Structures are given as C-alpha cells and as structure tokens.
C-alpha cells in the first residue's frame, strides 16, 4: 500500500543508534521510526555504535527505574523483515562486551566498515 503511494521508490534507510537505551528518549523514539519505516517497504538497516550497543544487550531490567523495557522489540524486528543489524566491533570491545551479550543476531563490523555502510545508504538517520 505505502509502496504504491511512494511511486515504487525503494531507498536504503540506515538508522544509527548511538545512545544508551534509558538515559534519554532517543533509543525508544528511534525504534518507533524503524517500525513505521517497515510499513513503507523500504530497505532498512540498523547500526549500533558507541553507547548504542547497550540498547541490544541481554537481560535488561527496568523495574527499579519505572521505565518501559522496550528491548524485546528488537527481537520482533525480524517479523517486520528488518534483519540487517550491524554492530561496531570497537564499540563492543571498549565496553567489555561481545556478540554473546547481545539479544539479537547481528553482523559485527569494524569502524572502517561502518563508515562504508553509512556511505552505501541513501538516508542515514542518527539517534
């Protein structure tokens, strides 16, 4: 439906997540954009760099902070055909994290490869 409305144009959208999940609203509102863009049948990728890697760390518990734990939503992205998730290797290493700490399957890229990924996308939205 939405694809027709856009004249069949399919662009490569990259959402760059740079911030920890609960300190600011950016991660949550970024996820809201990602979910909407799925309805427009665009070519969507997500990148996690800097503190953004904490958004997809396993075992998030927000009870004490009275905030909504929205981390299960990342697992649901597959159901929206959003399967291209990239994580920066250096950002993981700097925080003592490995791929095994993450709650979704990702492709780990070096900082240089991450730059290439950004270059290869049409619309880059950074949150």
């Amino acid at each position, binding site marked *: 439906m939405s694809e027709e409305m856009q004249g069949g144009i399919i662009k490569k959208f990259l959402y760059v997540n740079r911030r920890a999940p609960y300190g600011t609203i950016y991660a949550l509102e970024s996820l809201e954009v990602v979910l909407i*863009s799925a309805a*427009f049948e665009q070519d969507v990728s997500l990148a996690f760099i800097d503190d953004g890697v904490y958004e997809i760390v396993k075992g998030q518990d927000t009870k004490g902070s009275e905030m909504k734990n929205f981390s299960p939503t990342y697992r649901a992205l597959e159901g929206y055909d959003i399967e291209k998730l990239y994580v920066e290797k250096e950002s993981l290493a700097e925080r003592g994290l490995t791929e095994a700490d993450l709650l979704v399957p990702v492709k780990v890229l070096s900082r240089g490869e991450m730059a290439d990924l950004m270059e290869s996308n049409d619309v880059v939205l950074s949150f």
Partner: protein
Amino acid sequence: MKLAVLVNEGPYTHQASDSAYLFTKAALEKGHEIFRVFFYHDGVYNGTRLMVPPQDDRHIQKRWSELAEKHKLDLVVCIAAAQRRGMLDENEAKRQGKDANNIAPGFRISGLGQLIEAGIQAERLVAFGD
C-alpha cells in the same frame, strides 16, 4: 534540489531549531524546494503557540509560522512525540478529553510515516540535532 528537513531538538535549549530554520530559509531563498520540515523528539516544541520568549529575543515558533505562510511550507509535528510531551491540536485535545490545545498556525500534527515519506521523496533529508 528537493530537500527535506528534520528537527530533533527543542527550541532555545539547542542550536538545532535555529540552524534548521536558517538552513530552510536560505535554501528557499536560493530557489530550492523544501518538501517538508518534520519535528521529532523535543523538536515538537517548535510548534507550540504558547511559547512567550522575552521580547528582545527571536520568536522561534513565529519565525516558522511566518516562513510557512510565505512559502507554503509543510511543517509536520510527530504525533507520538507530541502527545507524550503535551502537544495537542484541536481534534486530539477533544479526543483525549483535554481542555486546551497548543499547535501554532502553519504546523500540523501527523504520523511518523510523514518522515519516512520525506526521506523517500526528497533528494536529501537534512537532520538537525545531536
């Protein structure tokens, strides 16, 4: 060139609102087309008509409204971001049982699809924020 603009930060607290306005104005003056200006995160506060800045300072909302009127600009405030921050238009205020609304002239409230559409239709989507 057909451009779209995204404003992600609140007025007065952050440069983004000023930079986005000055960029949009300059682009229009140079003959570029602005497909849409979309306000997200705290950027939605650019569209409250209840802001009353000191008289010797710029009036960020009025500047947008005047630019919109002059150039038939499409200023869109994200509904989800707006509602959680207390920004309502007349219809939403009624629907939510609230006693007031605060959307400024020239702005309209709509969904995030409007941002995606701007990304698709514009040659460049220029984002202002951190």
